[in-house]
């Protein structure tokens, strides 16, 4: 039995964050290198790791994000190996090197606590989309893990001559230096229940990248679990 299962044993640690399979994240924790992770995303850990839900620093930063259930991030400290997952979503690991990335709130899985981050509403879109379009802007040098339902695609906005329009439910992350605006494609015919189903998009322009997932399911499963 061990023979067959041995293939799924953890690989030796090679980096702070690694994929174990496509949907699981393995984080090598060490004292002094704290991690902020989505509440409820922990699936396993080895070693001595402590979790502090709703830490004061996060509460301050994420007060806009809070909808009465507490901040959706927990602080993980200690030594060991931490395994995180979000209901089988693909995990994409990004090693920021003095870069910045804006991530849709539900697509954040974990990031180094040493990174600068802040929660912001997308301007002009605040009243849209039941989930509320909150995004977390993360910058600095360190590791970030995102989730994507399905294999994502990265599109370079600079290459197209026109703006890039994205369904907000499928949006995962984008470069913060892109200009974002909402675009409604209502027509007279759309108003009588004959829309194309694509009534609202976000338009990106400028130099940078947009990460999109092949699914329009943006429900926050970790949150919904309660």
């Amino acid at each position, binding site marked *: 039995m061990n023979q067959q299962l041995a293939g*799924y044993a953890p690989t*030796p640690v*090679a*980096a702070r964050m690694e*994929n174990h399979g496509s949907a699981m994240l393995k984080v090598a924790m060490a004292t002094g290198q704290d991690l902020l992770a989505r509440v409820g995303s922990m699936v396993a850990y080895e070693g*001595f790791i402590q979790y502090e839900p709703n830490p004061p620093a996060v509460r301050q930063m994420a007060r806009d994000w809070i909808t009465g259930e507490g901040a959706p991030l927990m602080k993980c400290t200690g030594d060991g190996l931490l395994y995180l997952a979000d209901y089988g979503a693909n995990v994409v690991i990004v090693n920021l090197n003095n870069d910045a990335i804006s991530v849709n709130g539900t697509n954040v899985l974990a990031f180094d606590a040493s990174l600068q981050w802040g929660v912001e509403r997308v301007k002009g879109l605040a009243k849209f989309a039941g989930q509320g379009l909150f995004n977390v802007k993360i910058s600095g040098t360190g590791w970030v893990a995102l989730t994507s339902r399905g294999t994502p695609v990265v599109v370079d906005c600079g290459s197209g001559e026109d703006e890039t329009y994205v369904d907000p439910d499928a949006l995962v992350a984008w470069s913060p230096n892109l200009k974002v605006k909402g675009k409604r494609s209502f027509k007279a015919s759309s108003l009588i229940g004959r829309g*194309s189903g694509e009534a609202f998009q976000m338009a990106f322009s400028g130099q940078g990248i947009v990460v999109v997932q*092949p699914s*329009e399911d943006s429900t926050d499963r970790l949150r919904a679990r309660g």
Partner: protein
Amino acid sequence: MAREFQRGHKAKVSDLTAGTDLYVGVQIGGPGLTFDISCFGLDANEQLSDDRYFVFFNQPKSPEESIQLLGPQSGDTESFRVTLDRVPANIHKLSFTATLDGAGQMSQVGPGYIRVVAGGEEVVRYSFTGAEFSTERAVMLGDFYLKDVWRFAAVGQGFDGGLEALLKNFGGEVLEEEPAAPQQPEPQGATPGFAPPPQVAAPAPQFGAPAQPAPSFGAPVPAPAPAPAAPQHYAPPPQGSTPPPPSPSPQIHAAPTIAAPMHLVPGTVPPPAPAPYGQPPQQPPYGQPPQQPQFGRQPAPVPGQVPPPGAPAPYGQPAPYGQPAPYGQPQGMPQGGGGLHAAIQMYKELPTGQRWTSQNKQLVRVDLGAGGQPVLARQGSMVMYQGKVDFGYKGAGFAGRIVGNATGQEMQLMRCSGRGQVFLAENSAYLHPIELQGDGICVSAEHVLAFDESLQYEVRRIEGHGIPGGALFTMLFQGTGTVVVMTHGTPVVLPVTPTTFADSDAIVAWSAASQVIVSSQVRLRRNAYPGHSGESVNLQFRGAPGNFIVVQPYEV
């Protein structure tokens, strides 16, 4: 006007283009995979009688320069210049092949192609994906062959054994000396001095160039395929500054900076040693203070080190987590090598050129500019678009027919028109663009994602007792164009035999020539579970040999 070839298609080169000075581009790549792309000039017996006509990275041209290796360019992983009228008379076939260098198998490759460009215009392209292959380690992509006149064929045939099997295929007598040929470059290939073209593609500076669509992970590295030397296993390390070290030791810095999720799956690599996890031998317990004697011997490179593929003790053996050192491991690591762009490089948009492109298994891109016709797509399936695209409601002509037939079963479509690229996806279902060339296919209505408006379609209703909703709606597509079918999970394609049955919930599509019969079986034990009628509905298919059905592993 580029022609799309499928596997096995052939054409005279003179039908494709009047020119004989051709550019052949090959794009092939996959996360963590490296390929050697070479051209074999074969004689009339399909043997490599003259190894000067084995054109590869260490022999970049044939003696009279009719075949030249040009290196990666314009989105191609490798490119050749072939001057057909200068190819000597004893060469009857030019076979373009890709062989995997290092670990991996052909099923891991992403979408790729071999194309022929004449006079700056692409004349033919054969696209393939990893799904067409399995455990092969080498593949013959396409051939120019001389049969009265020069012809081009899309081959797509793989070999399990990699380059050796390929060489064997091209002549047993060459086998003795041919393996020697690729090994000659080995000392040379490992030094950074050789093969400037591949080196150009690998380092990081390219990531910044927005107009460069080439996925650089496929860039060939100057290591010959048969050499089991591990170092280039993860070939292009995103940090551009590090040239491949001349020593054959594992490249320590390669692993940490690559965010290759799926292909690092340990499950895909059979562990060579029994080394079961769960019994870590002589492993110091967790809290053990670092006076452990090994600790002093743990030099910095250990945490980042990747065991070479041939090493006997790969997974979970001496349990690095057991030792205190690796926890704090990031110390020895090249922090930030590559950064943001390197991490998402593997998810880059694929280069354009076709009307329908599978971006990955779950995303398909349609280029409305190519062909100019609108596309009909399921409402809400657009995830992103670039350009000026108009999304309109698709009128009642079609929907009305369905609505008239049933309630709650109608399928809402939208028409995408204009110019630009539209990315379509639905709920991370697997997408399969099916190109119809005059033939017909029936697709269950709920598995249609999008199709060309040029196709004729009609809705058929299959009634049967016990089918949820009272009937199964299928759409029959005929004509020339592409239908994108979506499945949950990897589907199975079965040939239609006298006894082919499928669950009406799991059936996705079938070829239009086969006939569907609803067969119900009433079980004796009626109440298998509450709410179950005890009656199961199957669809039986009948048809001439050659028909097929597609079934998904998911019952909606």
